């Protein structure tokens, strides 16, 4: 599947393929092909116009499905789920690291009371969550402490 860069002419076939994928609004097309598409539209208005009109009908149909904004209650619940990290990031990371290590680390972190949120989440989460917790442990174990920093 080739692409037409801005400096190249776009074939009719490529124009049709892109329209079928990205729809009638060329602004939604990949950035690198927009100029070439615009030139073809200018050069061949009948051909390109027929293709774009067909795709515009589908775009319009898709736009008919509007969504309400998420409820304020959802926003409240999501915010309430944010961990209460009162401690500076370095402390939080230190505690998190110990928490994912075997028993000793878990006990220490639990005693510190800083990972209650994590435990609650893990207990309430679906089965796939367990894999994420394991992955998190893996990531922290293999990572150097400095690699966690958000520069």
């Amino acid at each position, binding site marked *: 599947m080739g692409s037409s860069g801005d400096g190249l002419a776009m074939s009719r076939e490529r124009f049709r393929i892109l329209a079928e994928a990205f729809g009638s609004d060329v602004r939604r097309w990949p950035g690198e092909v927009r100029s070439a598409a615009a030139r073809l539209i200018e050069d061949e208005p009948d051909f390109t116009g027929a293709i774009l009109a067909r795709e515009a009908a589908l775009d319009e*149909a898709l736009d008919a499905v509007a969504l309400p904004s998420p409820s304020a209650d959802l926003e409240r619940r*999501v915010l309430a789920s944010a961990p209460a*990290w009162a401690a500076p990031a370095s402390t939080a990371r230190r505690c998190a690291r110990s928490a994912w290590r075997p028993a000793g680390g878990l006990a220490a972190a639990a005693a510190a009371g800083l990972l209650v949120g994590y435990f609650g989440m893990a207990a309430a989460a679906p089965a796939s969550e367990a894999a994420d917790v394991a992955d998190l442990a893996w990531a922290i174990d293999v990572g150097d402490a400095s690699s966690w920093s958000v520069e």
Partner: protein
Amino acid sequence: MSAATGRTPVAATSPVKQVRGLSRVRHSDPDGELMARLARGDQLAAAGLVRRHLPRVANLARRMLQDASEAEDVAQDVFLRLWKVAPQWRSGEAKLETWLHRVALNLCYDRLRLRRRRETSLDPDGHEPIDPAPGAAQTVLARQRARRVERALADLPERQRAAIVLCHYQDCSNVEAAAALEVSVDALESLLARGRRALRAALSQEAADLMGDADG
């Protein structure tokens, strides 16, 4: 086994893997500063991220699942996972929105799989319709049309539906959508084209059926 680390790669749905996978390409991420503040324990940063991304995450899930309650559960779950990975987030190495989209899609796929397993997959007449925005002046015909489009979208294979939702409704670029779907841009193009072709065929057929009914 990963040749680089000698470790077994993590599961496909893992946020950690997603952070690490996306980290191969450096991104300019407008959320980098908020993520850095979140990692330092800044609650206002959490609120900023929720305000900025929750509507889009919730909409993505709703369009994929066509069920408001399940979509809210997915949105909540996405943010729970974000809170967990925040301390390890490396600003500039992964674009947060792409990560959120990817996690949301994977959670949606899980739920869709579960539905199929329970043999309660979308019943064209039984699934919950997406309500129009409150206050929107929609005619009965417009509502019916929206229902038809929803049904046609629901009947698409998951990945084709996801490609259309990302590119059409979420306004993702082809590169962003491909990253969220974990496919190449060429594969994304193919998913989009097949999905739109199937939608057009379904909607044309339905229109023809309706006209046939009206004639009969």
